[in-house]
């Protein structure tokens, strides 16, 4: 069983969101980078659990990005995994990213590919579905539970207005979210081990981007809160009814 886990680096959740170069680029000065929480908490940890159950599982991590991703990928390796692959290119187009991962995945003959449901910076929710289409394997999105049985998997996933349990024959691509696993803190042994785990840097395949971010915008500031005294809820109801017109 070979598993590939997609890892993305994102700004820490408390980062100030600001832009530079005429709003064309994210202002990364002073920003702490983390593993995208969906990739770490729910996706990587689930894959590690599968490997703990069956030590013959081969677990590879992959990221697409520049050398500044290495710290993040080492952090991920400190949690678990046998080796990591970094495709050495940067892009803000999900088609390019998915194509790079697909090229590596094809070569590696993985049975299972896990992605987080989205990144907390770009909020794309696109890589998993694109990968599945590129590899022509089933795609199970928004998984909350996952059980492996040989080359079959049972996946519980969020659908419109509820959940669905699906059976699938591997290979498959799964996007993961809350419920799959619980957050773990890397221990000293893991951190030491991660230093010597292989991190392969591979050149990108030639793919033309289909989208380009031209600028960023910040939402307009809120006008400020209107406070209503606690003993006068009738006024709040009136404001919501007549001014905001929401009830």
């Amino acid at each position: 069983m070979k598993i590939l886990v997609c890892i993305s680096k994102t700004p820490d959740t408390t980062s100030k969101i600001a832009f530079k170069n005429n709003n064309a680029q994210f202002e990364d000065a002073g920003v702490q980078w983390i593993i995208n929480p969906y990739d770490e908490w729910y996706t990587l940890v689930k894959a590690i659990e599968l490997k703990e159950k069956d030590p013959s599982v081969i677990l590879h991590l992959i990221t697409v990005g520049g050398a500044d991703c290495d710290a993040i990928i080492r952090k991920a390796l400190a949690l678990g995994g046998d080796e990591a692959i970094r495709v050495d290119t940067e892009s803000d187009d999900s088609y390019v990213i998915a194509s790079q991962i697909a090229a590596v995945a094809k070569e590696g003959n993985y049975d299972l590919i896990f992605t987080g449901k989205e990144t907390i910076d770009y909020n794309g929710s696109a890589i998993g579905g694109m990968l599945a289409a590129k590899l022509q394997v089933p795609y199970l999105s928004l998984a909350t539970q996952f059980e492996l049985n040989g080359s079959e998997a049972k996946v519980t996933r969020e659908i419109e207005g509820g959940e669905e349990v699906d059976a699938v024959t591997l290979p498959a691509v799964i996007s993961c979210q809350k419920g799959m696993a619980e957050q773990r803190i890397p221990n000293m042994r893991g951190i030491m081990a991660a230093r010597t785990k292989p991190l392969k840097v591979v050149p990108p395949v030639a793919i033309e981007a289909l989208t380009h971010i031209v600028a960023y915008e910040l939402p307009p500031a809120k006008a400020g809160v209107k406070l209503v005294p606690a003993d006068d809820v009738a006024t709040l109801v009136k404001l919501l009814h007549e001014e905001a017109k929401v009830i």
Partner: protein
Amino acid sequence: MSVLIFIDQSEGHLKKASFEAAAYGAAVAKQMNTNALALVLGNVADGLTQLGNYGISKVYQIQKDIFNHVDAQVFATVITNVVKQVDASIVIFSHTQTGKAVAPGVAVQLKAGLVTGACALPQNDNGFVVKKTVFSGKAFALVNITSPIKVITLNPNSFGIQMITENATVEALEVTVPNATIQVVATNKVSGEVPLSEADIVVSGGRGLKGPENWGMIEDLAHVLHAATACSRPVADAHWRPHHEHVGQTGVQIAPNLYIAIGISGAIQHLAGVNRSKTIVVINKDPEAPFFKAADYGIVGDAFEVVPKLTAAIKEMQSK
């Protein structure tokens, strides 16, 4: 050239977000002087002609039992074939569970640029630029799609619908459908309650409510408002409430018309999931709670006193 809007259905009923996608797609078609066509997969008996009210001229329907469940690869292949058949150059989905599952596959099969989570009409004066939410609603990105075919998923509750009185024509399409790639073992639909992602009003509780036994008053308030209930992350982590109610950066992101936050401090990760709400009301006993800075209306006070009074006051207003 035309605009094709994928209309999602569940158990034969059209989804609310789909009407919004239809109206958005029709507005895109108008910008480009072309037709807005809709595609419905599955057995929907009523309401298809009414898509005309949202600006759709023609609805294509493919009725097959395989569409009762969303098999992402099957849907993506069928939709791709229809796009080619009707010569659509823009394909619109709602950014819902189904849209997220299917749109990326369609984009790959058509080698089309994809923008997910769009929140405004495209700007055509310099390329084809779509505005989307990024950083969990804390900012927007303007994305230029350069491929000949373009795929967009629209954030629910982000486009103002203008209805017209027109009927759409409905036409059955015959296409070959690929084999299923997944096998559905069970479905578990939350019935009765208002689903969180579709709710116009959401009443949400945090750790300030002290324990699960105190959620009665949250449910009462939600009930009078026909609202869905939500919660902060620690509340779901402590199993006071089910995980699907967890909103925020690592939970569900919502954009209702009204979000009422009760006993929630307003941590940045929580705000990331709710800051696109049109109106935010905060009830918190701490005047310094950060949530007040993101709120439109607020009450500084004890939730255990304020919430039952609020429910009663709303009931009174409704009875008038």
